[in-house]
Every structure is written in structure tokens, then in C-alpha cells.
């Protein structure tokens, strides 16, 4: 392992480490554009120059491998002057779009100019003009004037998605990022180029002109779009509700996880937050009698649910849990079932359209916690539950989250089951055709409105955290179930998710030894063999 000195600090790094990564280890951040740890080396931007002893000129750090005995200086006068020069070169033809550019506030031309530029501009000739506001595909907008031609987007499409849609056409200062004329940037990971674009050349069409980034808060979370569990950040706008028509979730961004998704996320996951602020959100408990639906209080609703569970025989209750529920929710449900001896429970509901998957991140299972639900012992036969309802053996159906009428079963059969049950209880965040048939609707907090854990397809238990307050009177599902337990006479459990997880880890062998601190931000594998 080479030992080298960076800015006077001696460090040891694995062989083959480039100087940008080596410097990071030494706590030094070398400014750069074209370098990206997930892509090949380009060496084009020329910003990452450093002084290496015994080399006559500054060298780019991205292409320099750490060598034993190397002495590197990142803040010499010469390096600073070179950075300032390179910043000027980058800005020669760059349009002054900041007031109308979405990147403002997270733009690396702005940031590095303030850190390393601060010169008097002297370019007063006409700048080169290129196409602006060009939609490249459904999700990505190009402004070719703003582009600094770092080629990250080209390398992403070549090396990560291997779809090769983007290229740099022409040459000299007429070079331009572009597609083959007439084609689209429509691969399933297209919007990742927006993340890696250091400037406002590639921007998100969904986010365009919605809200300034400095009004956003960021919360670490996990994408619920499929069983991969890509790590994300949820960016919320809480301070400017008059922007973006009051949409609280402004955007999702991928969060680096070396073992799950690295730097990337698929487009479906990135844009899959629409349900959170949708009109269909359930905000209050409600009760249906005949055709009449009226709001109810939590007291009333919980009493009714506990009452029904207490009144009926265990086998007269059928529970259809959801693989979208958190581990904490599922464990709380298990406690409720154990309290009443209820055995008819399952969570697998086939989708109408089978999910697709690919060789990269996308999984066919479009729920985040099927494995967690299975490890928690809730993997019963849902079709049998519905059949029992049709046969009037099951008198109460408690459905979590699913729209059974839009699932992969015969709609008429499902309809008969719902009609046959005397009591249908629905717990979920969004209304749907099934919830409309429920006698009691308990509004659940959306995934961004509470914390919890999911277990991804590889058995990794990952934390998602609370980014927003629940809408209306919605409560986290584990909290709802805790209150049902209390109504059933079990000592009240404090509603905090972490408490549920501690109990879960103590009770379920697959989760033994796991805790919120040990799961941290990167997740932790469950012991699957011990299910």
C-alpha cells in the first residue's frame, strides 16, 4: 500500500488509488468537474490540478496514481492560479443564466468560482450560442450553452446503461452535447445524468422551475418503488408552500450506497413519490354505513376495530398485510394477530401487470419489504383468505394498502369477497377502489412522514427517516397497530419506531443483533437463514 504525503499529511492508500480519492482520505477536497468515481477517467476539465514534487508542471489529480513517497501539494500559489485560470476558461462562453437556471444554489460553476475564481471578468466579445431548453427525453432537459463538456453524461450512457444515446458533436468551441437527431434519451436511468451534471446543462423536467434549491430540506430515506431499496434523499419544500402548487416533496435524489445502488437510481423510483401529495391521500378516519361515509374520530375507529377483532373468532378474521409496510408495522401487526390468535394472514397480492426487471437495479417485485414480511412470518395464502371471505367463513377482512380490485385476480371474485365480508377495514395512506368499500378506513402516514425500516431483496435492512409531518390525522401504521393492541388490553407500547424495532430484533431470529445505530445510513444484512 503506497504511503504518500498530501499537504503535509502522511496517509496510506490501496495501490491504484488516484490522487483525488487519496486526498479525500487526507481530508482534502480537490475541486473537479469531469472526474466521477463511478465512471472512467476523462481528464478533460483540467480543474483538479495539483503540484507533485519533482514534476515541473501541475498535474491533474484524477489521472495520477498514488505512489510510494509521493509528495503532493494542493494549495500552492501555482495551483491556486491554475484553478483561477481554469475557472475563467470555463466561464468564457458560459451564459449568465443563473437567475433562470434551476442549478443555482447547487451549481459547481458558482461554487468553484466563489472558492477559486473571484477574478474580474474580461470576456466582452460575443459568446458562442447553442441550443437552449431542448428536451432530450421525458425527464431530461438540455441547455447546450450551459454545458461545460465534462462528458460525464456521455460516459454514463456508455458505461452504466450501455445505451450510448449521448455524444459530443462537432469540435472546438462549437462542441455540443447531443443525441443522434430524432432519437430520445429514454433509457430507464436517464435522469441520473441530471445528478452528475455539475451545472445546469442537464436539468430535471419534473423539477423545472418548481422551487429554488436553497428552500429545500434533505432527509435520508429508501426508495419504496421496488425490492432493490435504492438509497435516496428526499428533498422537501416546507418553507415555500406557495411554490409547486403546494407539493411538499420536491424531488428524490439517489444517495450513495456501495452495496446497493452506488450512485444511481432508476427513473421510476426517482419520480415515484406522486402518491405522497396526491388528492387521494386519506387524512381522517372514516366510517361507511351503506352508501354514507362520514369522518370518525380515532377513538371511535380504534374502538370499532378492536371491538370487531375481540368479538369474532380468530379464524373469522382475515388479514391482508402489505409488502409496503415497514418491518416495525409488520411486527406490530404480528403482535395484534398473536393477541387474538388470528392465523389467516398473507401479504402477496399479484399485480395486474407483471413487474419487469433488468440486470442492473430494477426488480420485478415493486414493493420494498416483501422479504421483511416473509421473515416476520406473515407469508400466508391471500387467495385462500379471499375465498374464505366469499364462503362467509371469514367475516372481517382487514386490508393494508392494497387495491385488491386492481390486482391480478378476477375483479368480480374480489368484489364478491368484499361484499361478503361483514366488516372491511382498510389501513393505508391513499384511497383506492378497495378503500371505498371499507367500513372503517384508518389513515396511515406516508413513508416520508414517518421512520422505519425495510428489508430489501438481498436481505439488507435499511432505515428510512421522517421528512415531513403526516397529513391531517394520519398516523404511522405501527402506531395505529400499537393503539389497537392497547385497545385489546395489551400494555401500551410507546409509538416510537425504534422501540418496535428493538422488540422485533429481540423476537425474530433473522433480525437478531440489529439495531437502528448498527443499521446506520448504509443498512445491515439480516440473517436470512435464521428465518
Amino acid at each position, binding site marked *: 500500500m503506497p504511503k504518500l504525503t498530501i499537504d503535509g499529511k502522511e496517509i496510506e492508500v490501496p495501490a491504484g488509488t488516484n490522487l483525488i480519492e487519496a486526498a479525500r482520505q487526507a481530508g482534502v477536497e480537490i475541486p473537479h468537474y469531469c472526474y466521477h468515481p463511478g465512471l472512467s477517467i476523462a481528464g478533460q476539465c483540467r480543474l483538479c490540478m495539483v503540484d507533485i514534487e519533482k514534476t515541473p508542471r501541475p498535474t491533474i489529480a484524477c489521472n495520477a496514481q498514488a505512489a510510494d513517497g509521493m509528495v503532493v501539494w494542493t494549495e500552492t500559489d501555482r495551483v491556486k492560479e491554475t484553478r483561477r485560470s481554469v475557472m475563467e476558461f470555463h466561464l468564457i462562453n458560459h451564459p449568465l443564466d443563473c437567475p433562470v437556471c434551476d442549478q443555482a444554489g447547487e451549481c459547481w460553476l458558482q461554487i468553484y468560482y466563489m472558492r477559486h475564481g473571484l477574478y474580474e471578468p474580461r470576456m466582452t466579445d460575443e459568446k458562442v450560442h447553442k441550443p437552449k431548453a431542448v428536451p432530450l427525453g421525458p425527464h431530461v432537459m438540455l441547455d447546450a450553452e450551459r454545458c461545460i463538456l465534462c462528458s460525464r453524461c456521455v460516459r454514463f450512457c456508455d458505461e452504466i446503461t450501455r445505451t450510448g444515446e449521448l455524444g459530443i458533436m462537432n469540435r472546438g468551441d462549437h462542441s455540443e452535447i447531443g443525441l*443522434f437527431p*430524432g432519437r430520445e434519451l429514454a433509457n430507464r436511468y436517464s435522469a441520473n445524468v441530471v445528478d452528475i451534471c455539475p451545472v445546469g446543462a442537464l436539468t430535471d423536467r419534473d423539477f423545472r422551475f418548481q422551487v429554488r434549491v436553497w428552500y429545500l430540506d434533505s432527509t435520508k430515506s429508501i426508495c419504496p418503488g421496488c425490492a432493490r431499496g435504492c438509497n435516496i434523499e428526499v428533498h422537501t419544500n416546507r418553507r415555500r408552500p406557495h411554490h409547486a402548487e403546494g407539493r411538499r416533496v420536491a424531488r428524490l435524489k439517489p444517495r450513495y450506497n456501495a452495496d446497493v445502488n452506488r450512485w444511481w437510481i432508476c427513473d421510476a423510483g426517482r419520480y415515484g413519490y406522486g402518491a405522497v401529495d396526491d388528492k387521494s391521500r386519506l387524512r381522517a378516519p372514516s366510517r361507511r354505513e351503506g352508501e354514507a361515509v362520514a369522518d370518525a374520530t380515532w377513538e371511535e375507529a380504534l374502538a370499532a376495530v378492536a371491538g370487531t377483532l375481540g368479538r369474532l373468532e380468530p379464524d373469522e378474521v382475515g388479514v391482508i398485510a402489505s409488502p409496503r409496510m415497514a418491518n416495525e408495522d409488520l411486527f406490530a401487526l404480528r403482535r395484534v394477530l398473536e393477541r387474538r390468535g388470528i392465523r389467516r394472514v398473507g401479504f402477496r397480492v399479484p399485480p395486474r401487470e407483471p413487474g419487469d426487471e433488468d440486470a442492473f437495479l430494477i426488480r420485478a417485485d415493486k414493493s420494498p419489504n416483501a422479504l421483511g414480511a416473509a421473515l416476520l412470518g406473515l407469508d400466508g395464502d391471500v387467495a385462500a383468505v379471499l375465498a374464505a371471505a366469499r364462503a362467509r367463513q371469514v367475516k372481517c377482512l382487514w386490508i393494508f394498502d392494497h387495491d385488491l380490485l386492481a390486482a391480478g385476480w378476477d375483479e368480480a371474485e374480489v368484489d364478491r369477497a368484499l361484499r361478503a365480508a361483514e366488516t372491511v377495514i382498510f389501513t393505508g395512506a391513499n384511497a383506492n377502489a378497495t378503500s371505498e368499500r371499507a367500513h372503517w378506513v384508518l389513515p396511515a402516514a406516508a413513508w416520508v412522514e414517518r421512520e422505519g425500516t425495510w428489508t430489501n431483496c438481498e436481505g439488507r435492512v435499511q432505515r428510512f427517516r421522517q421528512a415531513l409531518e403526516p397529513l391531517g390525522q394520519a398516523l404511522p401504521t405501527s402506531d395505529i397497530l400499537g393503539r389497537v393492541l392497547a385497545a385489546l388490553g395489551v400494555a401500551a407500547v410507546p409509538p416510537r419506531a425504534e422501540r418496535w424495532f428493538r422488540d422485533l430484533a429481540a423476537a425474530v431470529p433473522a433480525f437478531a443483533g440489529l439495531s437502528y445505530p448498527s443499521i446506520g445510513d448504509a443498512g445491515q444484512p439480516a440473517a436470512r437463514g435464521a428465518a
Partner: protein
Amino acid sequence: MRTVQFPPEQLAEVRRLQALYPDRRGALLPVLHMAQDAFGWVSLEVEEYVAGLFDLSPAHVHEVVTFYTLYFRQPKGRHVVSVCHNLSCHLAGAKTVLDQLRTRLGIEVGETTPDGRVTLLAVECLCACERAPMMQVDDRYELDLTPEKVDRILEGLR
């Protein structure tokens, strides 16, 4: 409407060229020359066709076609006249040659005569500086240009 496709003998030549290189992509520039000769100019359709012959994304073929100056992306005249206007030719009067050609042909640099006879270009150093001013007409160099010689050459272009 003609489909862009090499006839069998030319396709065989493409495969032969591809086999000369350790990575067949090395044959891309020669094959684009072939395509330009066969189809007259390099249209987007030609680019897509050639991309298919190499299993390359069309965007990467488009990069190559837009980078180099010898691939015509629009129909060109039956004859291409490229006048060098770099240093030694400038010193020897390239501007005068260009002015004469603009007047005789009635077009600007970069344009093609309406009858499709001549495309006029101004180009960088063709490396015939000792015989400046000079121009390239189709494949050949025309050197030591004088106004009379330029007129004679134009007359010979049908």
C-alpha cells in the same frame, strides 16, 4: 425512395476492411468514405446504416461525422472546390482566388451552385504551400493558381 444499403460486393469490402483492425471499429472512417462515395453524401440515414454495420450507437457515428471536415452532411455539388486560406496561401493571395470564385460561381463560401455543379469551400492548410495559392478540386490539387488558371479549371468542371 432508395433504401441506404451497400450492394453485396461493397458489403464484402466493408467486412474485409473491418477485419484489418484489431477492433473493427478502426474501419469506421474508411467505411464512411465508402458510404459517401456510394451514396453521394452522409445523411442521417447513412449514419444509422453504418452504425448498424459496426454495432455502434448512431450517436457515436454522428460524433465522428460532425468532427471531421471531409464528410458532407448535406448534398454536395458534382465538384468540390476547396481553396486553402491558411498562412502561406494567404500571403500569396488566397483572398483574391476566393473572390474570383465567388464572383464566377455566384455563391458564397460553403454554398453549392444552384445547378449542383460546384460546392465552394475555404479550408485550412492543405500542405502545398510551396505552390501557393492553391486549391483542391475533388481529389486533385490545383497549384500555382492565377486568375487565368482558375478560369480554365472552372471551365473544365461539368
